[in-house]
């Protein structure tokens, strides 16, 4: 089992920020929706600046719960979370947003009756002054949104909604973006688009921690991956390595590899 190390050497060239410094660090995380039922049972997660990290694992492994716990949406009962070297355990969500974390939930990730522009505006609610200049950059990254800036988000296709959600989460220029199953429910073509944009965002220096069902694709593009099982870290290592590890494939189908 590989220890977590910094991002791939190959990627380092494109990082504008100094890579390698630890951005997010969670230790022994214990959390769950209802009292007494822990879904996440002692997870460790690290994300370095500019890194792209995936969390995969079988259904019910606690992936989504993990990411929601990091963002203050699920009560954390144990462990500590650091962000940019400050402890942020049990911080309310809006303070994490202020600190520089963006989050895209898996479902209901747009305001359906609001237009695209209004959705983005809400993403920058804390700093309305930046709205105009952020529009420019984000519309460059997601040209389709520029075309549809006054369309209601609820009338858009799943893939387009996902783009709106990504753009909204990027309005405040977060240094870390948390994505909960960004490819869920999308058609193959849209999955391609979304993964492509995620890589683009990452190449601009935004660190990404994403939970994915589509383990193959997610690991293929990630610097590192965590494989979760029963709310605990099972394997950790560079994306490629995990991808080719037969034990990981086994895990999904129940042949619990011991060791």
């Amino acid at each position: 089992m590989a220890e977590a190390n910094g991002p791939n050497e190959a990627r380092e060239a494109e990082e504008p920020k100094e890579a390698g410094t630890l951005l997010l660090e969670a230790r022994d995380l214990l959390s769950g929706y209802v009292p007494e039922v822990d879904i996440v049972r002692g997870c460790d997660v690290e994300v370095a600046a500019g890194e792209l990290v995936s969390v995969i694992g079988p259904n019910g492994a606690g992936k989504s719960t993990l990411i929601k716990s990091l963002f203050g949406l699920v009560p954390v009962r144990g462990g500590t979370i650091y962000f940019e070297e400050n402890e942020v355990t049990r911080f309310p969500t809006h303070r994490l947003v202020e600190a520089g974390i963006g989050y895209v939930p898996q479902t209901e990730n747009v305001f359906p009756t609001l237009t695209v522009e209004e959705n983005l505006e809400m993403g920058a609610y804390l700093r309305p002054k930046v709205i105009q200049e952020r529009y420019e950059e984000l519309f460059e990254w997601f040209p389709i949104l520029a075309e549809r800036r006054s369309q209601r988000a609820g009338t858009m296709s799943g893939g387009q909604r996902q783009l709106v959600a990504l753009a909204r989460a990027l309005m405040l220029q977060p240094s870390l973006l948390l994505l909960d199953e960004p490819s869920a429910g999308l058609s193959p073509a849209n999955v391609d688009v979304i993964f492509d944009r995620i890589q683009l965002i990452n190449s601009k220096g935004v660190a990404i921690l994403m939970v994915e069902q589509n383990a193959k694709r997610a690991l293929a593009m990630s610097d590192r991956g965590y494989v979760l099982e029963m709310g605990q870290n099972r394997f950790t290592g560079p994306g490629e390595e995990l991808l080719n590890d037969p034990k990981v494939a086994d895990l999904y189908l129940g042949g619990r590899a011991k060791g």
Partner: protein
Amino acid sequence: MQLSFGGLKAVDGATLEVEPGKITALIGPNGAGKTSLFNVVTGFYKADGGAISFDGGSIMGRRPHSIAKRGLVRTFQLTKSLGRMSVLENMMVAAPGQAGEKVFAAWVVPWMINRQEKENHRKAIELLELFNLIDKKDDYAATLSGGQRKLLELARALMMEPKMILLDEPMAGINPTLGARLLEHVGELRDRGMTFVLVEHDMDVVMRVSEHVIVMANGKVITQGSADEVRQNQEVIDAYLGTGGGAVDEALDEVFEEDARG
């Protein structure tokens, strides 16, 4: 027991059969339509087409309570304990054919009710003892731990003397010791001739207890067979790990919304 559907988005033309006296596992990635299938079979959702028959009769379009009365009983993913009732009351309420459930019966035929209540009480105590919940019998169900509630739900289902039980993620959020006990009970009951279908995420469990495994993806059955057969199947591996090209369907948007969990 033949189940087939068409038209429903979440369950898109799945056809499957469940053999009596066996434990069948239903597996598949998130949004495969497993829970939706349970909801359709037990009458909680309406199917747009297809046929469902159980124990030699059609149960298509019937209401949930009438399906349950025929002996096809379900549990829920998020346990539905009757929180502000005692554990014992939770059990007693489930007993079938209670004369006292008719309005005014308590005024007219109290002796009949008393007799039945005694019998049901005995049965309930027996089951609670079996499930190690007897110490809790006078506690409010809402005060039980998550695992104990799962046990209570199964015990309560057994009060109904069902022919077949559908278990929706019986092991989710329950500690391994209680989980093992629950599985033991399921195994014993199967040996006594009861039929089980379970949706489960823990593949270890699936592989260990089930005689037959049905794999769903995108609302369809993609393969079925013994645990080992299924494990070797390339399609299954793809469905779980993602294919790289993605076999996910646009029409599944809605499924993800209702079936979304971590």
